[in-house]
Structures are given as structure tokens and as C-alpha cells.
């Protein structure tokens, strides 16, 4: 069977070779890079612009961004017909292609995040390494830990006030440089679509900007969600048995609500920006009504109406906006809000990627995508529901592992 045939339903006049070649993993790809970029921008808001309210979530967002970073290229790997040849992009990058720069942008960004993390956690590594060095009769695990932390210090053990001050400066610079790079990483994912002149829905110079805005929205939402989950867990543990050095339940609750409220303001800001740009694009297309508008109108207002206006704009944008804007925000309402926002951004990616292939290049036919749910071979797994969910779960698992080495709340008690 031809690749794509199994999940494509063709209607009216389409070219014989046309199928939905870019399926759910290509929806996941901008979704995941969007989360990376968004999480990073959120953490930088504190480090660069000194927005104090975001202090606690900033460190958290940075670690999460690092975890997401590893998950971001995975959808592409699952999408490629030859995943092991993916490395060719680094070996013979063909720079007229928007995808060719992926490796470079991605690694630059990775390096920035990693070094920022290092400066942020350097003191922690040194303290850990020294403590483990003191320890007599280390067991196997402790030896490994000792080695790990020694390596992570990179041989720098200077944790004087002065040195730490310099660290802070470095973090600020890195976070500052990181913002444009993060925006570039994601704006450029938008460019991959926006520059395809053959595709009437994709081709618009607004695409990268729309992508960046919705990326920030999704990144903030995911950070808030994970933050709330972690805080709830802490509350739960405190309720069960409070250790003497821990904050009281009320303190944790207060801190949590404060962070959530502050962050949600930025969420709403970027959400409004994203919606404005998307609507501008839509209005512009309708107003100029070039050749492709007839088929686009059919796709947008008829065939994909439900996905675009109900799922994306309604459930994914409007309802969360109301939830966040009505006064007296609660944790439960925020959870619902951020979940819906995440869903909305996912639907936006879906409507771009799948919607862009919903009509034929003939402008006289349509293609319908049916997501493979129950896989019956590797292809229908990786480009089906299973593959998409695995990708989505990945950063959480990674975050869980990484936060052993980069404790997100470890220093909280010293800071308060």
C-alpha cells in the first residue's frame, strides 16, 4: 500500500498521487517545539526582565524546557520514512530548504539551555559533590552519584559570593540571547509551512509569528499545569506527614495561588495576541479572495468548521479566556483552563497541518484524514494515536528523571 493511502479518503477530483503525507507526527512536531520555546520564554521573563512574580516558576520552566528539548525532534524521527538517515541533514544540509537549518538551530538552542541550567545549578552540584566526597564508606550508588556530580561541576568548585554573582550575570545574558533563539526555533517551524507556495492554506508570512505566539501560550500553559500538579503533590505529602523544615499547608497554598495568578496574566496576554493574528489571517484571506479562496472557504467554513470554530476557537480559546478573566481564579479553574488552552493549541496545529491537506492541489477535490487509532502495523502505530501519545508523554517522563539531578524545588526552603 502507498504511504498515506490508509488514512486518506479522497473525494471529487484529486490528483492520483495526492495523499495526506504529513500526518499526526507533523502536528506533534510544531506542538512540541512550541512547548519548548514557550517554556523557555516563560523562564526568561524572570531572568531577563526581572519579573519577580515568576521567580519560582522560572527555574521550573527552564528544567522543563530542557526535558522537552529532547522530545522535540522525536516526532520527526517517527515521521521520516528513513529515520536513521535523519543525520544526513547534518552531513549535507541543503540550505535552500527550511528544514536544513533544523540541526543548527536546535543545537544552538540546546547549548544555550544547557549552559543556562549549568550556571543555575552549579552551586547545587558543588554542594552535592562536596557532601558526597566527605561521606565515608560510600556504597555503589553513592559512588555513581559522586562521579555524576563531580562531572557536572566541570571541575569548578568556586562558590564564593562573587562567583555566584557572576553566574547570575551569565544566566541573564544566556536567557536574553535565548529568547530570540527560542523564537527563531519556533518561528522557523512556522516558516517550514508558511513558505510552501504550493499550499494555499499554509502560504502566508504571518505563519511564523502566529506559531511563535501560540508556542508561548502553550509553553506557559504546560508549565502552569505541571507546576500545579507538583504543588498539589507537595500539599498532599505535607497533609500526610509534615516534616518540621517544610512550609505549612497554608503557606504552600498561598505561594501556589500567587504564582498561578501571575502566570495566567501572561498566558491571557499571549493568547489574545495569538487569536488576533489568526483572525487577521482569516479575514485577509476572505477579503482578498484569490483563486484558492473558494476551496479554502469550503474547508474552513464547512468541512473543518467543527475542528476550527468549535474545537480550536471555542473550546480551546474562548472558554479558557473566560475562565481566566472571570475574577476569583481558583486552582481547579486554572487546571481546566490550561488543559483547554493546550488542547486549543494542539487543534491549531492540527488545523494547519491536516487542514492544509484537506483540499486537493486541483482546488476541486478534498481529502479527509482518519487518525489510525488501533494500530495494525508499525506505520499505523507511529503515525497514529499511539505514536502521538507516546511523544506527548515523553517530556513528562524525562522531566521526572531530570528533576533528580536538577531539583526544581530543592532550594525552595532556603529561598523563603
Amino acid at each position, binding site marked *: 500500500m*502507498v504511504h498515506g493511502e490508509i488514512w486518506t479518503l479522497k473525494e471529487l477530483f484529486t490528483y492520483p*498521487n495526492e495523499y495526506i*503525507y504529513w500526518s499526526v507526527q507533523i502536528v506533534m512536531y510544531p506542538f512540541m517545539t512550541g512547548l519548548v520555546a514557550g517554556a523557555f520564554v516563560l523562564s526568561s521573563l524572570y531572568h531577563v526582565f526581572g519579573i519577580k512574580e515568576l521567580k519560582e516558576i522560572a527555574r521550573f520552566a527552564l528544567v522543563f524546557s530542557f526535558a522537552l528539548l529532547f522530545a522535540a525532534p522525536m516526532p520527526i524521527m517517527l515521521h521520516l520514512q528513513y529515520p536513521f538517515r535523519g543525520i544526513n541533514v547534518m552531513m549535507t544540509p541543503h540550505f535552500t530548504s527550511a*528544514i*536544513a537549518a*533544523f540541526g543548527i538551530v536546535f543545537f544552538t538552542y540546546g547549548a544555550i539551555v544547557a549552559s543556562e541550567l549549568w550556571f543555575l545549578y552549579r552551586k547545587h552540584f558543588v554542594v552535592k559533590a562536596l557532601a558526597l566526597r566527605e561521606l565515608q564508606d560510600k556504597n555503589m550508588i553513592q559512588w555513581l552519584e559522586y562521579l555524576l556530580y563531580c562531572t557536572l561541576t566541570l571541575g569548578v568548585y568556586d562558590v564564593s559570593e562573587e562567583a555566584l554573582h557572576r553566574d547570575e550575570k551569565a544566566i541573564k545574558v544566556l536567557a536574553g540571547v535565548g529568547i530570540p533563539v527560542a523564537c527563531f526555533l519556533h518561528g522557523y517551524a512556522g516558516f517550514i509551512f508558511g513558505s510552501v507556495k504550493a499550499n494555499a492554506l499554509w502560504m502566508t508570512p504571518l505563519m511564523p509569528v502566529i506559531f511563535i505566539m501560540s508556542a508561548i501560550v502553550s509553553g506557559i500553559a504546560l508549565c502552569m499545569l505541571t507546576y500545579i500538579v507538583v504543588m498539589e503533590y507537595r500539599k498532599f505529602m505535607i497533609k500526610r506527614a509534615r516534616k518540621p523544615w517544610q512550609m505549612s499547608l497554608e503557606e504552600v497554598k498561598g505561594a501556589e495561588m500567587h504564582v498561578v495568578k501571575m502566570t495566567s496574566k501572561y498566558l491571557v496576554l499571549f493568547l489574545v495576541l495569538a487569536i488576533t493574528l489568526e483572525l487577521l489571517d482569516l479575514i485577509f484571506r476572505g477579503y482578498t479572495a484569490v483563486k484558492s479562496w473558494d476551496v479554502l472557504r469550503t474547508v474552513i467554513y464547512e468541512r473543518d468548521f467543527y475542528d476550527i470554530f468549535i474545537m480550536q476557537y471555542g473550546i480551546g480559546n474562548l472558554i479558557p479566556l473566560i475562565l481566566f478573566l472571570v475574577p476569583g481564579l481558583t486552582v481547579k479553574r486554572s487546571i481546566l483552563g490550561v488543559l483547554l488552552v493546550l488542547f486549543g493549541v494542539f487543534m491549531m496545529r492540527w488545523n494547519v497541518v491536516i487542514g492544509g491537506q484537506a483540499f486537493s492541489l486541483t482546488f476541486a477535490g478534498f481529502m479527509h484524514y482518519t487518525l489510525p487509532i488501533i494500530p495494525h502495523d508499525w506505520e499505523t502505530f507511529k503515525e497514529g494515536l499511539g505514536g502521538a501519545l507516546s511523544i506527548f508523554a515523553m517530556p513528562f517522563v524525562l522531566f521526572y528523571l531530570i528533576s533528580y539531578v536538577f531539583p526544581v524545588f530543592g532550594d525552595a526552603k532556603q529561598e523563603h
Partner: protein
Amino acid sequence: MITRRKFLKYSLIGAAGMAVPTGLTVVHGGTPEEAKKKGLRWVFLVDTHKCVGCGLCVKACKQENEIPYDANVSRTWVERYVVTKDGKVHADSPKAARDGFTSPDIDEGHGHKRVIKPEDISKAFFVPKLCNQCENPPCVQVCPVGATYQAKDGVVLVDRTWCIGCGYCIMACPYGVRFFHPVYHTAEKCTFCYHRLGAGMKPACVDACPFGARRIGNLLDPNDPVTRIIEDERVSVLKEEYGTKPQVYYIGLSKEVK
């Protein structure tokens, strides 16, 4: 392209000593130097008046280029257009017209057939399609690894040993020419039967067409009969607005053609 490939070849051997993909050493058939000297630019000429929609070209192409016979993809295909008196345009290309058009009903996908009464038809015709070997090919532009490239004689080729199968080129071609090969799983397209051109033969579809609707020629040779038609007569190309500068010329195109 050549220099990069060579560079890569040496650096690969040097760096890791890993197996060099054979594709890196592939010469772009018909040697570009030769092509330049001779002044060679392959172009195609389709006379839609002559096409009867028999599909023999599609059959020949599938066999010549080893595209699985029953797979629903093809390097070349034939479209049927039926314009009814109410101004509506109906078009189809069932199985890429591999078996010709055996039914008067229009195939609308999903097993739907549209029955059109002969007395309602105002005009009907066939249009063969194939890769336009664009002068400004977007498929080459977007390939992230340079696996799709343009030979000096204008033909756009795919290196099966280097293509990563991202499908970007498929998305970028405004003519829906490309697909993934069902067996090799790499990007696949019409090459004007490049292997045959190199051996001094004509593309399989040109040879297979009993009515002379398909012809190939060298645009840089002023005495080539195809070139003379392109220069002297009224010809058109498909979807000029994309700026791809297509090099498959048509006689008798109509505004209904997609």
C-alpha cells in the same frame, strides 16, 4: 552539488570510516559537461487534441519504472475533463488512467460515480500529466539533504540512497507529481525516463502513445521539431502563477484544466 557530495564522501571516509552510501558517487546521468557542450535541455510537448485517454502511456510507465502495477500512484497519469452545459466541470483520473477510461461515469472517489448524460455535455477532453522538470523547481529548493537535484539538462532527479523520506518535496510540488515509492519508500517522480534518455532512447510513454500525443525534445536545439513547435505555435504550460517555469508544454489546454 557535485563538490558537496565529493566533500562529504571524503570527510565520511576520514571521519568514521563508515560505509559510504553508494548514492554519493552517482554521476548525474548523461554527464552534465556533455549536456552543456551539446546544449541540452529536455522538454516535453503534449498535444491534448491527440490524446484519446487509452492509458497505454501509464501502463508503459509503470512497467518501465517499476512502480507496482496495482499501487494507486503513478509517475504519469491522464485526466479526463467533462464540461456540462450548465458550466460545471467534472474531472477524474481513475487509477491514474492505467486502464484508460472504460466507463463514461465520472469517478468522484469513495466509490461514487457521477452519471452524465451525453446530451448534457458541452465539451470533453483528456490531459496527460507528468513531471514538468521545472526550471525553478520548488521540490529541489525544499529538500533538506539535497537528495532531489536538477541535472544540467534540466531533469529533476531523486537520489534514492540519500532521501530521508521527509515528504517536504511532495508538499512543495504544485502539480501533485511526487509520491513515496511503495517499495523503496523514498520520494519518487517522473524523470522523463532518464535512464532511457541516457541510452539514446525516448521515454517509455512517448514510445507507447499510438497517437503521438507525447513528444520529447531538446529546447536548445533549434532544429528539433518539438522546439520548433514550442517556438512557432501557441503553447501553454500548467500553473504558471507558481513561478516554477514548467517545461512540459501543452497544445490545446483549456481554462478548466487544473
